[in-house]
């Protein structure tokens, strides 16, 4: 995994609560057996009319947000299905940071496994970010979101911070515990 660097970008405000992973990637695109190329299917049913014509009223089709790397979302983002394809699609589309008041558990984990930083903030801060038109900067090392020269700090679990910053392979990390795993297996009944 690539180490996570500072991200500076305008934000894409997706003003909707309870966005489920069925919306992030509809099921018809889950049949691919690779991890790549899912960006074109991101929010497919919201992005396109029947027949593949982009919907003018959907935020991702607004050219103003074309190079945005930061997605602003509302409460309970990523709920529902465990499909990691949702995170692969966000990543492939170009989003590296997602900011919301809350995330669904499985989605939250899946983000870190793919080098995406999900940040939880208060209602008040989210509201402020939703009204920001200028670029913001996310600095994971210092745990700071810089908005119009005002720093806003955020919390993050230390292990996830380390994994993102160093781009670690978590399977290799677990395999370092091989002797403990083997010991556990010897004493375990079921």
């Amino acid at each position, binding site marked *: 995994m690539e180490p996570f660097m500072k991200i500076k970008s305008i934000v894409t405000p997706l*003003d*909707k*609560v*309870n966005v*489920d992973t*069925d*919306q992030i990637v*509809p*099921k*018809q695109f*889950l*049949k*691919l*057996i*690779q*991890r790549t190329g899912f960006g074109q299917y991101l929010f497919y*049913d919201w992005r396109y009319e*029947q027949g593949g014509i982009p919907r003018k009223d959907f935020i991702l089709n607004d050219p103003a947000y074309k190079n945005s790397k930061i997605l602003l979302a*509302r*409460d*309970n983002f990523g*709920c*529902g*299905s*465990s*499909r*990691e*394809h949702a*995170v692969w699609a966000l990543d492939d589309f170009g989003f590296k940071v997602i900011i919301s008041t*809350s995330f*669904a*558990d*499985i989605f939250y*984990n*899946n983000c870190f*496994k*793919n080098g995406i930083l999900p940040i939880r903030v208060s209602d008040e801060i989210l509201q402020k970010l939703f009204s920001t038109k200028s670029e913001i900067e996310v600095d994971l090392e210092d745990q700071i979101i810089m908005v119009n020269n005002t720093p806003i700090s955020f919390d993050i*679990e*230390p*292990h996830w911070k*380390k994994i993102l910053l160093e781009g670690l392979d*978590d*399977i290799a990390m*677990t*395999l370092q*515990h091989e002797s*403990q*795993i083997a010991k*556990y*297996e010897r004493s*375990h*009944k*079921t």
Partner: protein
Amino acid sequence: MSKTLFEKIWDSHIVVDEDGRSLLYVDRHLIHEVTSPQAFDGLRLNARKVRRPDLTFATMDHNVPTSDRSLPILDQTSSVQIKALERNCKEFGITLFDIHSPNQGIVHVIGPELGITLPGTTIVCGDSHTSTHGAFGSLAFGIGTSDVEHVLATQCIMMEKPKTFEIKIQGKRKNPHAVTAKDIIMSIIRKIGTAGGTGTVIEYRGDTISELTMEQRMTICNMSIEAGARAGLIAPDEKTYQYLKGRKYTPNNYDELVNDWRDNLKTDSGAKFDKSFTLSAENIAPQVSWGTNPAMTDDVTGSIPFPDEYGKGNPEEVKGATKALQYMDLKPGTPIVNIVIDRVFIGSCTNARLGDLIEASKVVQGKKVSSKVRAMVVPGSQLVKKNAEEMGLDKIFKDAGFEWRESGCSMCLGMNPDILAAGERCASTSNRNFEGRQGSGGRTHLVSPVMAAAAAINGHFVDVRELDLN
């Protein structure tokens, strides 16, 4: 020190604690065709093996057709995914219940049916409805594909310890044939919300839960994820031990294990939960979802709400409800029993077990599906199908005009040819009413099997408490 059931299972599976997280041992890993191919690719890329193929079981359920299994699969992309699973299981030595196996079925139906699911164990699967297995007192949860790869390679999962959430359900349902386990769990989600359980493992407790059959308990635990919970748990009891006895993969030392479970697998009196919620079962009515998430649900006797009233002053919720009603093409104030439906789906890991089909067949027997409705039954597994056929249930459904299908996830998520057309309205026994879930533009109303069966006959929702179901 007093511990909850969850804490006991958690503590007994810790391999090592590190940085505020625990490396937990995984007792059973279930895999299917949709969320595993990239995980196997990852193993190959890094020249890693499957650590415990003997603890890993695979089936194909998500995208398999439910029509004649002797015919080739027409959808090429589905076929590629199914073949990839066959190849991967062969290469890594994993037991696979393939499309022609008598043990094939929805992964959360076959796990318990085959005795792979056991009390006190940890179970993971790349599917959010893994919470179903919690009905047996196992700590079971869904994971993403990266974690599937992690478990394949290490037989462990690294996790932060979730909080505990006690949900107590007490009292007798007035009509247990009409007010089902589905109505209980939908009532809970309606009250605590789709994020009410986020970050927690729910333990369902109380006399109402004790009275439920194992299949009904699975329906409850299955939808824990719809309340945002990592997992749902029910302490095992004699019904649990009886259910698992003599199944295909039930261990040889089963009686010895049961003795141990009887002593240990319960929440100690005096143990504290981080959160609690209590529900009385006495006044629960049959539930019908009206919106685009499972908390947007009302009693069958209710009406479509006005968004302002539903949102209770929260502008985001008001907006959400407005958008949901637009998508569902429903007007506030419409009585739920006036909603006319086009399709009926009885199936899914929530409600496609033998008991579900028996209950639904009582509504259907001797009647005909409304001429305006297309209705189908998709048994949860080949074994459920076989048992149902031995009881003659297939004949009851077919005589009434239902389609009787092969097992799979089918129209719960519409990855196979069983989908809703845009604008079609479906009474469905599945678990999610998200936009487009059952087909792009399709409209889903979540209900119990008896409610779905009655809607099929009448062409609209009816209060099944008015029917004689005994």
